[in-house]
């Protein structure tokens, strides 16, 4: 036991708790299995330990020890690869796949969370050693809030208006409002689609959003999330019964055609509203210098 034992213990515990707090199993059902969780808690523990020991190293003027943090960076990049590979492998067996953009977003989040753990442990240990144990607790709580804030992205309901529209056929063409979805030839299939299908129109709230929701990865994420939350009326080998999202080229609206097992309009609207806005899909054309000139984009 020395003067650093308690601060280190404290930092590691707070860091690991932060990781546990950020490791929630939600509707995405991932990570849902125990082993997946164990991996992430263990990595979170390692991250916490790395962040914590940096402070005593600085205090003891062991500056070379800090270089170990670079090791951490490469270690946690591996986490991203691991998550990406696992999810990509699993995706081919999903009835409605997540899509590469969604997977990349999840993988990046897993990597980022470990860095937040390092930061939390670093700050709490620093506060504990320089001020006192109570300061360590305050620093821990503040970091927890910061982590939560940094980890919560935007939701679709923030950027689009969601409207329900009845599906209709014009000849063999399936339409939601004026947006063409696909050609369904067989009358029996058309009846199934009218019976089980639902149509929604996502109306962008501003010009930036048009490009964001046009992203194919973002659209696939919407379809995946609805299918997870409300079930999906399809099986392998029924390509006619596939949820699709198509774009209105005139005004950037997106027509979302889904086949939920639970046909509840309000629930479906709520689910679409809760779909995360994928970081990789966000576009900001209005921020471009060239766009500052001329008329305002709407």
């Amino acid at each position, binding site marked *: 036991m020395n003067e650093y034992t308690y601060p280190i213990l404290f930092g590691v515990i707070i860091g690991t708790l932060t990781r546990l707090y950020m490791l929630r199993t939600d509707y995405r059902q991932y990570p849902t299995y125990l082993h997946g969780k164990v991996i992430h808690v263990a990595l979170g523990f390692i991250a916490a330990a790395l962040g914590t020991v940096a402070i005593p190293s600085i205090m003891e003027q062991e500056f070379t020890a800090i270089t170990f943090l670079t090791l951490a960076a490469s270690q946690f990049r591996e986490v991203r690869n691991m998550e990406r590979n696992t999810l990509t492998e699993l995706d081919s067996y999903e009835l409605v796949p997540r899509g590469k953009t969604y997977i990349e977003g999840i993988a990046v989040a897993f990597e980022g969370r470990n860095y937040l753990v390092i930061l939390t442990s670093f700050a709490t240990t620093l506060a504990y050693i320089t001020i006192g144990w109570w300061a360590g607790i305050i620093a821990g709580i503040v970091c927890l809030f910061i982590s939560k804030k940094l980890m919560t992205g935007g939701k679709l309901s923030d950027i689009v208006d969601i409207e329900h529209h009845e599906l209709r056929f014009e*000849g*063999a063409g399936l339409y939601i409002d004026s947006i063409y979805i*696909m*050609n*369904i*030839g*067989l*009358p*029996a*299939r058309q009846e199934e689609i009218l019976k089980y299908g639902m149509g929604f129109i996502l109306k962008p709230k501003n010009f930036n959003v048009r490009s964001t929701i046009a992203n194919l990865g973002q659209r696939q994420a919407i379809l995946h999330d609805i299918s997870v939350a409300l079930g999906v009326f399809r099986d*392998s*080998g*029924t*390509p*006619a019964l*596939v949820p699709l999202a198509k774009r209105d080229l005139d005004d950037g609206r997106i027509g979302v055609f889904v086949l939920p097992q639970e046909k509840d309009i309000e629930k479906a609207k709520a689910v679409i509203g809760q779909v995360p806005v994928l970081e990789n899909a966000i576009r900001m054309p209005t921020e471009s210098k060239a766009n500052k000139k001329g008329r305002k984009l709407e």
Partner: protein
Amino acid sequence: MTIEKYILAVVTTNPQKAAGSTAIFPCENRAEMELIAASLEAILDGIAHRLTEELYIIVKH
């Protein structure tokens, strides 16, 4: 060319409207055409698209 870009079968009540290397299924009437298109859809894991009232194509997406 991938199989997703290929017309796997043509089902028609008017065989004069279709030609080429694709399998063509001439049918007597509309009911037979729909029956064959439905079976082919299930067998080939494809979608039966209706181009005209007398012509279906089966495509895998």
